[in-house]
């Protein structure tokens, strides 16, 4: 097969299926810039090379390819029955041969190869097609796809590839907490590996991650009328109750970025207010808001830990406010027109500190909004169906949220840079997602 023939035959394949991925926000709403500007065709092409059939290597390649696609930073070059075209490394006489001209002809700027280093190690190399050189080499200690950490290790490798190519690591090695019919689960960022977190026959609701995904906190309704918070190690499943939450209805919480403080909402006979508990020293419960005739809830820390955005009904309808982490300096955060703008809820401060995502009622349905923290301008990201409870990925460019656009509530992910939207879950029902930091 000559290169010329191959190039001709592949020209049609270069039209990426993702180039004009649907973005659902085209309507303008009063005073709000809607939608995302996306210039197609500027993302680098990446080709995941095949090779001889091998369960372990094929799994690695498939997971890597999907992670790279979901990073929304590449045009993934997909070939029908890819390795039948011989797009593995090497040739009959030259096992180390890298066919850069072929990859370039396919439109690849980068090529990724997974090979067996030995029985317990997989070697992944990233080739710079233009520069005709290896850009990065990563070895993964996986001997069997049944290994407990197999998927996580491959996801980390994908994040490393993204870092090698773009300078910023990807978010494949992350998980999302979600609620399905009262039970809490985690799911990998690619939608695989659904795992129950809260015990069966209990009813959970809110959840949040601690730093580096090493622990999480979730709310469980009690047999009495209250609800308490539990801090859990997601690996061992060990959990302990947060002592001051043995009274009242405690929910909608957030760890401070350093993990020492736990801010949470408590509904009791004085209304709903935000409290903070020192998790490290297990002491010093402090009430941050005092609203006899209003409710204050859903705290989210700025990444420097100095400020907390939250929801308050002090002006009537719930809107987004901000305060110092000690409760001082409370003020309106996301602007609204009194009596015109819909209710706003569920704020989440982006990991880069620049944005607050939240949902706001538009014509009777919640929609995802993002506010620029510096300019305090808001833009609407969604308009199809009901969209709520946004949560940031650690890269600060992806948001997961709940949408009923296909009928029932599922978790969807939007990339703010490209506007691409994908469905993460296909469960009976999924809501209240919480996206983890990168997992150590």
């Amino acid at each position, binding site marked *: 097969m000559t290169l010329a023939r191959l190039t001709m035959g592949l020209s049609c394949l270069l039209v990426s299926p993702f180039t004009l991925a649907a973005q659902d926000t085209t309507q303008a709403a009063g005073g709000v810039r809607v939608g995302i500007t996306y210039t197609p065709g500027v993302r680098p092409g990446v080709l995941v090379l095949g090779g001889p059939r091998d369960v372990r290597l094929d799994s690695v390649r498939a997971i890597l390819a999907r992670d790279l696609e979901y990073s929304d930073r590449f045009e993934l070059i997909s070939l029908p029955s890819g390795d039948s075209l011989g797009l593995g490394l090497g040739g009959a006489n030259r096992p180390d041969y890298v066919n850069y001209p072929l990859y370039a002809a396919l439109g690849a700027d980068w090529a990724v190869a997974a090979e067996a280093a030995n029985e317990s190690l997989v070697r992944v190399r990233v080739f710079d097609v233009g520069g005709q050189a290896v850009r990065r080499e990563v070895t993964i200690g996986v001997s069997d796809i049944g290994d407990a950490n197999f998927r996580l290790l491959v996801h980390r490798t994908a994040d490393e590839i993204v870092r090698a190519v773009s300078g910023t690591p990807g978010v494949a090695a992350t998980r999302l907490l979600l609620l399905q019919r009262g039970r809490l689960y985690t799911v990998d960022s690619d939608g695989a590996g659904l795992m129950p977190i809260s015990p069966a026959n209990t009813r959970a609701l809110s959840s949040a991650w601690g730093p580096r995904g090493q622990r999480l906190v979730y709310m469980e309704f009690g047999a009495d009328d209250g609800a308490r918070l539990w801090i859990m190690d997601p690996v061992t499943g060990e959990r302990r109750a947060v002592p001051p939450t043995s009274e009242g*209805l405690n929910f*909608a919480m957030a760890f401070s970025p350093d993990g020492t403080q736990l801010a949470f909402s408590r*509904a009791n006979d004085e209304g709903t207010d935000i409290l903070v508990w020192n998790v490290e020293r297990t002491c010093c419960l402090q009430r941050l808001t005092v609203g006899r005739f209003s*409710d204050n809830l*859903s705290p989210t820390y700025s990444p420097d830990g100095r400020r907390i955005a939250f929801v308050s009904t002090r002006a009537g309808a*719930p809107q987004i406010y901000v305060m110092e982490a000690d409760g001082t300096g409370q003020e309106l955060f996301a602007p609204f027109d009194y009596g015109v703008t819909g209710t706003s*809820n569920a704020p989440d401060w982006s990991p880069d500190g620049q944005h607050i995502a939240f949902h706001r009622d538009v014509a009777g349905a919640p929609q995802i909004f993002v506010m620029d923290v510096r300019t305090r301008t808001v833009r609407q990201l969604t308009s199809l169906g009901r969209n709520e409870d946004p949560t940031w990925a650690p890269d600060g460019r992806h948001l997961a949220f709940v949408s009923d656009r296909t009928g029932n509530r599922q978790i969807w992910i939007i990339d703010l840079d490209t506007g691409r939207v994908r469905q993460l879950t296909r469960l009976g029902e999924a809501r209240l997602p919480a996206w983890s930091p990168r997992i150590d």
Partner: protein
Amino acid sequence: MSFRLSLMIGLTGLMVAAACGGGQQAPVTPQPNLDSIRRADSIAQAARDRRAAEERARQEREAARERLESQRRSDSLAAAEAAMARLRESLTTRIHFDFDQSSIRAGDAAALDVKIAILRANPNLRIAVVGHADERGSDEYNLALGNRRALAARAYMVQRGIAADRISTSSRGEEQPLVMGSNEAAWAQNRRAEFTITAGGERLVAPGM
């Protein structure tokens, strides 16, 4: 009585016959008359039987009276139970709310007034109020909203003299819908406060008694 009389006559006859015997004759030792003894025994037995029958009759009358009394007692118990069931029903009657609101509707104030009267008549009675929301609105905000609804119901009762510590409050947000469905009819039923008795509900006194 006639048996006793003939026994007396019989005995008298024997004594007369003995007294009129010849003076020279050896005194005759009176021999027991077996017939007379049997007769006497049967008379005594009859008396015992009669007494037993009288005792049985008395016991039966007693039992009948007791049955009647217990029937009367259980009748009034059933009535009391029914009355108490009505009181419990009044106490646990739900109230409803407008969308995203926690103010007590005029129509529901009467239902709360009935609860207040029952709470006044039963000082040991305690209740719990749990607020609920429909499926619209934020999942977490709805917990605060449900709590606000429970507090509104409690405040209404506290303002009318019920001690605050007799009414506990909580919320289940939109997590426990009463009616499934995504329409106003279902939502209207799900925006509610529910009342349960937490203490002192075993024996309830009706107001004004």
